[in-house]
């Protein structure tokens, strides 16, 4: 079972998130129409692991870019004016571009893994969260805890409260 409450003001929304946490509810989602650093702090979200994906992608891109330039020039030998077949300066440009390309692609991959998106299945959601409402969602609430969660949300000044049956 999940329970949701909407709030018109940021401070009520943040306060209820803190209350719920201190009352032992740990499966909380905080939905907002814009990024709120304080909400991220409440949930203890520090440095994102996305940065590891970016670094890994950039390193892999650099290696594969250089390997591709060297590999193709060895497979298809094209002598030009007596110059070396493996020429470092131009190959560094290919390496540079591939570093960025793979860095971007891996950052994208990292975003999807870390955020859990795409997620097209039904999840507790309130469409006003994309307009002007702050929504707190407590998921996986046991039936005996439901009344306590609802009381905390109501006491914090929620405009509306809704119970949602979660998919198993």
């Amino acid at each position: 079972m999940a329970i949701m409450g909407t709030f018109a003001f940021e401070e009520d929304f943040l306060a209820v998130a803190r209350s719920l946490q201190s009352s032992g509810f740990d499966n909380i989602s905080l939905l907002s129409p814009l990024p709120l650093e304080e909400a991220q702090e409440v949930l203890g979200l520090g440095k994102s692991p996305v940065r590891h994906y970016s670094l890994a992608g950039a390193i892999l891109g650099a290696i594969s870019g250089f390997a591709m330039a060297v590999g193709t020039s060895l497979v298809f030998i094209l002598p030009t004016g007596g110059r070396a077949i493996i020429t470092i300066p131009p190959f560094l440009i290919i390496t540079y571009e591939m570093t960025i390309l793979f860095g971007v692609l891996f950052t994208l991959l990292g975003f999807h893994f870390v955020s859990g998106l795409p997620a097209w299945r039904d999840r507790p959601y309130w469409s006003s969260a994309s307009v002007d409402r702050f929504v707190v969602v407590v998921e996986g609430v046991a039936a005996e805890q439901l009344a306590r969660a609802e009381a905390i949300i109501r006491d914090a000044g929620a405009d509306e409260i809704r119970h949602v049956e979660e998919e198993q």
Partner: protein
Amino acid sequence: MFDHGEPSYADVNKDVLSTMLETGPRYWMLLGGTMSVAGICFFMPWIYQLFVGVGAAGMNRNAVWGSYLSNFIFWIGLSHSGTLLSAVLHITNSPWRKAIYRSAEAMTLFSLMTAALFVMVHLGRVWFVHWSFPIPNQMGLWPNFRSPLMFDVMAITTYLTASSIFIYMGSVPDFAAVRDASTGMRRRLYTIFSFGWRGTAREWHTLGWAYTFFAVFVIPLAVSVHSIVSWDFALSAVPGFHHTIFAPYFVTGAIYSGTAGIVTVMYCLRKFLGFERYIGQVHLDSLGKLLITLSLIWSYINILELFSGWYGGTSFELEALKFRLTGFYAPLYWEMILFCAFVPMLMLSKKIRWSWNKMLLVSVLINIGMLTERFIIVATSQPRKFLPDAFGYYVPSWIEISITVGSFAIFATLFLIFIKWVPAISIYEVKETLKPLRRDA
């Protein structure tokens, strides 16, 4: 920040989404018009050229590069300030970026697509374009990565990919807003586009980090792309091309024309989509100051280019310089100097900088000057290389002129389609510039 009073969060959703969800006959007429011009002026002449060969263009034995490549550089240049400016302003946390960056990034994407089309047109036998990619094939043929043209393929492919991802990822929360405001087929479509975004703190946190990394990757990428385009010329030994200053010259020119392009696009968004509330004097003023700075840098590099050619003292360079300053295309050269070095100085006056109509005129003149600059680089250097018996002239044929005109219609068509599919102003980032929803605010 807001010229007509600060909107509420709900107003931002309503104002931006209404431009997507409500479509009047004027839009369809405009779209029909740009598509027709694109078809008649761009695609029909191109098809004709495919049948008769690239000889249909005015390029000849002396000038093997012509207006297709100068247009290619122009469109690549125009693409520059969108993503680059957006990334730089994101890293520096500039609040005036938020209302204009989405459309500026779209400008990047569509300019790049238009530029890529010019490569196809220039190639002649476009059906062999895949030969330039490192794809295994039955001939055992691999691209030569020592060639600057291959640097181009890699750079532009990377730039197109990165710019597409950059604009898409920034739009995901807004796609969710469109999903929530729509029904039926559109709702289903935007559910897919938004990846099921809910706006949780974790999603915002991850997007913020990823977006900053995209910005960090995109800034050096954008600089590298136009540097690499400049090396197509500068790594040759042709007088007029062979300058070490070419990379910064091209990059500055690119950002310059791109920024002027943003002013033009912002004018149209204000005028035709009714975004007066969101795109205001602060944006115009900031862009005006940026244009003055870029104009001064551009002028300095131009003087330096002339000086290094003259100081080199070789007869080939001096001949190329003389031809550029006093030869057949001299009027175009001086037009470029007038539009790109002198006209922008009008923006030193606040009266000009604060007037949308005057700024539109200045921005269009700058881009006419920049289009001319690219043409002059290509058209005055190759016909004047080394031996006098190789001297000649290059004049674009009607097919090239028509394709140039058509390219603007392609860009406009893509942009018109974009504004109906993607919120032209970032909804959530504009909300960040509003007073927070607090009791004490």
